[in-house]
């Protein structure tokens, strides 16, 4: 806030009548609140109220045709005591972990190349924009485009067969966990590249020279200087990737061919069966889990200097 606090004495000492001075100082005090108003209102309407609604509905009762306002814990009970929930959480966390590791490796490597090996700023910008090209089409299109490539008679399988490398089509390529993770990595790698690149661009190049001066090899420079200083970017990218994967349902449904499950998919199914309170309870638990993961990441890395 840059509103300067004029001392109240100063404003009441002005030539204006006493009543006017008081009114003006009230107005002055209100200015910061007015400035914060629009954002607060937006957050209230688009974030707080929907979440509170979901929390409220999660305690409601339902049957196969309608939902009843109530306060019951059965939704949570059924959710947390069902082995399906636990298996699905495990599966979702598995997707998140695999996607995180792979996007981190790709993101770090690409960002490192862009930040430290591309010398000219023009080329840096060009290559950076090239990274964003996949974003010119929608997520769904990008996922679907994998199907003719990975399918049983797809480009990859027919290519490998005609090259004589395999006899029969590889079955794991499509409608499998492999395909799900592949699609996730494809969709979200850039969310890792951008913040890590941003962190790396802030690293003083003299530090790299100082490390080389101290006898560090290229790998030692990366491990001892660049990696620690890129941590805030890694944390931000990780938050993006993990939250996106944890909440996803469409990628899992499309790429696993309905053979794999995620929490998002579970919620979507409950909604399609009009079990809104069950879906709401599931969403509240998912929100709590994701928040805990984010807080854990922020405890490990201090991202404040990046903001």
């Amino acid at each position, binding site marked *: 806030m840059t509103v300067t606090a004029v001392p109240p004495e100063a404003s009441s000492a002005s030539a204006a009548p006493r009543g006017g001075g008081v009114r003006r100082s009230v107005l002055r005090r209100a200015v910061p609140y007015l400035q914060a108003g629009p954002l607060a209102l937006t957050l209230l309407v688009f974030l707080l109220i929907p979440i509170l609604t979901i929390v409220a509905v999660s305690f409601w009762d339902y049957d196969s045709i309608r939902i009843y306002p109530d306060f019951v814990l059965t939704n949570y009970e059924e959710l947390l005591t069902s082995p399906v929930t636990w298996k699905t959480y495990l599966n979702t966390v598995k997707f998140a972990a695999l996607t995180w590791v792979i996007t981190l490796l790709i993101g770090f490597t690409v960002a490192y190349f862009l930040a430290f090996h591309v010398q000219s700023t023009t080329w840096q910008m060009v290559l950076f924009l090239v990274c964003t090209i996949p974003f010119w089409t929608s997520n769904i299109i990008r996922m679907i485009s994998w199907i003719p490539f990975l399918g049983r008679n797809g480009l990859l399988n027919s290519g490998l067969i005609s090259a004589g490398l395999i006899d029969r089509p590889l079955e794991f390529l499509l409608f499998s966990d492999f395909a799900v993770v592949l699609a996730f990595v494809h969709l979200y790698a850039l969310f890792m590249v951008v913040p890590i690149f941003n962190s790396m661009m802030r690293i003083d190049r003299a530090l790299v020279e100082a490390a080389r001066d101290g006898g*560090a*090899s290229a790998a030692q420079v990366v491990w001892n200087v660049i990696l620690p200083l890129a941590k805030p970017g890694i944390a931000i990218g990780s938050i993006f990737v993990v939250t996106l994967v944890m909440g996803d349902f469409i990628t899992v449904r499309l790429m696993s061919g309905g053979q794999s499950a995620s929490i998002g998919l579970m919620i979507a199914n409950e909604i399609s069966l009009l079990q809104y309170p069950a879906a709401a309870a599931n969403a509240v638990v998912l929100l709590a889990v994701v928040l805990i993961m984010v807080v854990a990441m922020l405890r490990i890395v201090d991202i404040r200097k990046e903001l």
Partner: protein
Amino acid sequence: MSTGSTTAGSTVELVKLRKSYGSTVAVDGIDLRIAAGAYCCLLGPSGCGKTSTLRMIAGHEDISDGDLLIGDRVVNAEPPARRGTAMMFQSYALFPHLDCTDNVAFSLKMKGVSREERRRRAREMLDLVHMSQYADRLPAQLSGGQQQRVALARALITRPGVLLLDEPLSALDPFLRIRMREELKRLHTELGITFVHVTHSQTEAMALADLVVVMSQGRIEQAGPPREVFNQPRTAFVARFIGGHNVVDDAAGRWAVRADRILLGQPEGADHAVQGTVRALEYHGASVHLTLDVPGAEDFAVVLDESRFYDAPLSIGDRVTAGWKARDVHPLVS
């Protein structure tokens, strides 16, 4: 030195050393020999090639042409750590995520020295630069002068034969600069290693160096002991850059005379004299600095002892005769 045997300094020799960036020539084939254990200052205005030269010696800049010898080895292709040099960077370049001890111990860590051992040796090195009490602080928690001491300790822990300093004092306030100057001189004497120090301040170069190398436009204008450079500037550039000289063009060619050797009024024993008008006048305490308008020189400076000036005070606009002795005239190479 308390940390064991001192490393003797190494000689540094530049042979036709050249650095070009595309068509721009930063260092234009310079030859220089710096004796082992010398304190050499590379002096010049910005863009004269002094920093490029230092960075080539350090191994942070590729050599375009020519040879670089440290000790008696050609080290053109060697990485920085195998040249026996250590560099102190202008911005200090301390690792912001490591405390002072780990910063100083960095090169030992790279060599695989155990944590206990390297932290112990780093503490000794911090002791040498009087920074032991800040051993656990992060660089951001230190003042500029303290950061510099840590950077110095980090460079010295590798026991280099040559310490390279890139404008080490330029970021400090004037008071601290003088303190650090003494400190550098002390370390140089104590360690006995070769120092190569880049600066644009002639005061700094004069105060510290045994060998002053004045550079301009990628070439060495003059290299020699500070007294020689000051008393016998070879070119007009050196005379102007070092300061305290008047450069005059006349029938006899181009020559210089020191501003504090000028006699004013009706000078007795002056072999040459010229008429001028006082244009500016500054009181500097111990001395008074005058600028005269005279034919043949842009700014004709006169430095007078304060008491001598007030024996016969002058004011701006006065006509005055300035004279000097023949032995104070130095012809310059044009």
